[in-house]
């Protein structure tokens, strides 16, 4: 029996007395790549943080792999890719940062096993950074840093990947590479929830898109696909959702 990775039902979040999310409901099924779209201040990042337990919610329910968030402890099942990592010790290497992703399954005062070290090397290779593994993280380009954060999230081989604006400050060519990487992860069966400003290069991968406005879900459905013959896709543009779906209701 497959368990739905993310189910959010009637979620309400207020921060400092100000309502940020109102009656938000959605689900992310296994094998889905779901985009969370919306303008600045629409509540996208707060929603991601709420479903990871990083901000408290006032009402509603969140279930991760069928377990209510408050009782959820299988953190190795979630790979979280934040917008950026603040590494204040400027000599911290790519390998060290990626290795920290092993801690969800590692007990204190234990050394990283040989298999664990091999897994770290494997995910660094997967994101195409083997030659940079022992370089300082802060000396990498924005796109490379983002790939390091993805590698760190992948170490525990999670079935769910949650990415918060992975394209922030990343050029178009690098966005394409990141999208290629996410597509290969999705092909491996991973469910992906990704916060985006615009769908752009991610569009071919998306199973569904959820649009937030002022903390409410205003659209949730399959993206419209069209045939542009041999003309290139128009850059950016608006989200066109033709089929509204709410499969978890």
């Amino acid at each position: 029996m497959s368990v739905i990775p993310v189910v959010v039902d009637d979620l309400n979040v207020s921060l400092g007395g100000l309502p940020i999310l109102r009656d938000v409901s959605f689900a992310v099924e296994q094998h889905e790549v779901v985009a969370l779209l919306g303008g600045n201040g629409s509540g996208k990042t707060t929603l991601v943080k709420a479903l990871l337990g990083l901000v408290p919610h006032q009402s509603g329910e969140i279930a991760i792999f069928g377990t209510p968030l408050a009782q959820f402890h299988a953190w190795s099942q979630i790979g979280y890719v934040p917008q950026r990592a603040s590494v204040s010790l400027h000599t911290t290497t790519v390998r060290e940062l990626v290795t920290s992703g092993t801690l969800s399954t590692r007990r204190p005062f234990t050394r990283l096993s040989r298999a664990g070290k091999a897994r770290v090397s494997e995910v660094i290779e997967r994101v195409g950074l083997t030659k940079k593994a022992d370089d300082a993280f802060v000396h990498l380009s924005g796109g490379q840093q983002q790939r390091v954060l993805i590698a760190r999230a992948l170490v525990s081989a999670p079935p769910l990947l949650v990415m918060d604006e992975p394209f922030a400050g990343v050029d178009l060519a690098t966005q394409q590479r990141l999208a290629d990487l996410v597509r290969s992860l999705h092909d491996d069966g991973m469910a992906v929830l990704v916060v985006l400003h615009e769908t752009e290069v991610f569009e071919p991968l998306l199973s569904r898109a959820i649009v937030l406005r002022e903390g409410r879900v205003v659209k949730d459905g399959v993206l419209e696909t069209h045939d542009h013959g041999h003309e290139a896709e128009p850059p950016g543009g608006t989200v066109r959702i033709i089929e509204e779906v709410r499969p978890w209701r």
Partner: protein
Amino acid sequence: MEVITLAFMQRALIAAILTGLVAPAIGTYVVQRRLSLLGDGLGHVAIAGVGLALLTHTSPLPVAVVVCVAGAVGIELLRERGRATGDVALAVLFYGGLASGVLMAGAAGQGAGTLSNYLFGSLTSVTASDLVIVAVLGVVVLIASVGLAPQMFAVCADEDFARVLGLRVRAYNLLIVVLAAITVTTAMRTVGLLLVSALMVIPVATSQNLFKGFRSGLYGAMGIGVVVALSGVFGSFYADVPPGAFIVVLAIAAFAVSWPITSWRHRSRPLASVDEVEPLPHEPTPEHEHVHGPGCGHRVVEHGDHVDYVHDGHRHVAHADHYDEH
């Protein structure tokens, strides 16, 4: 070298080794959390402990440890609740600690001379019982700083990510400030409460200039800490000055020497990192009978110097006699 046969110097040197190891070890996490001046503030709080001990005629070290740890927990709770109000509260706590320490020492009939032994260190003031406390607490701090390095590194580098790993971020943050408080107070005999923060921060910065990687940096900082602390104790003996001042001046000198090395490294590094380091793995599409081309009806997306065809959740491009996933 008969200096090391003197009992008080032996105690001072052992205390210096422990302080030199422990202060930069916990300092590595304090610097990573961008709380470099935490040690300074905790030193002020510990002065209240010293004043209380003088007033109550008890041993200063254990009382200072208890007062400083309590202050550290208070500081961390304030930090958690919001920085704007925390700033003012921290200032009240720090200067309140200093003022109340001086007041209590004065009320106990002790002048500034007595307090200065704790503020800047004093070779002759390390008693045998102090040394036992310094050794036991020093070993505890060392085991935690090195043994829990992966966890504390993760918490300091990215709190949100650490929470999603299931780490007890609040507990680790509390642990770091409590270990820092213990370090500050155990260092008061050698480097002194007003200067201990320098030994927590400067060897870490020096090590960052010399070594690559977090763990190498941690061990490097501990090595530098031991060298400057031992040298400072010897220098203090021969120059007849407080050891804390000598240790800190040496630490700054080591930092100054390391500076050109990091500058040279930066110059020899390529100016900008190129993103296209290694291609992502080549992945052929299994069994693709349809031939894409103009007018085939599938969606087209520009991709670098070619176009990809999109259908059924895949994006393909022709490559030799097959199609690749893009």
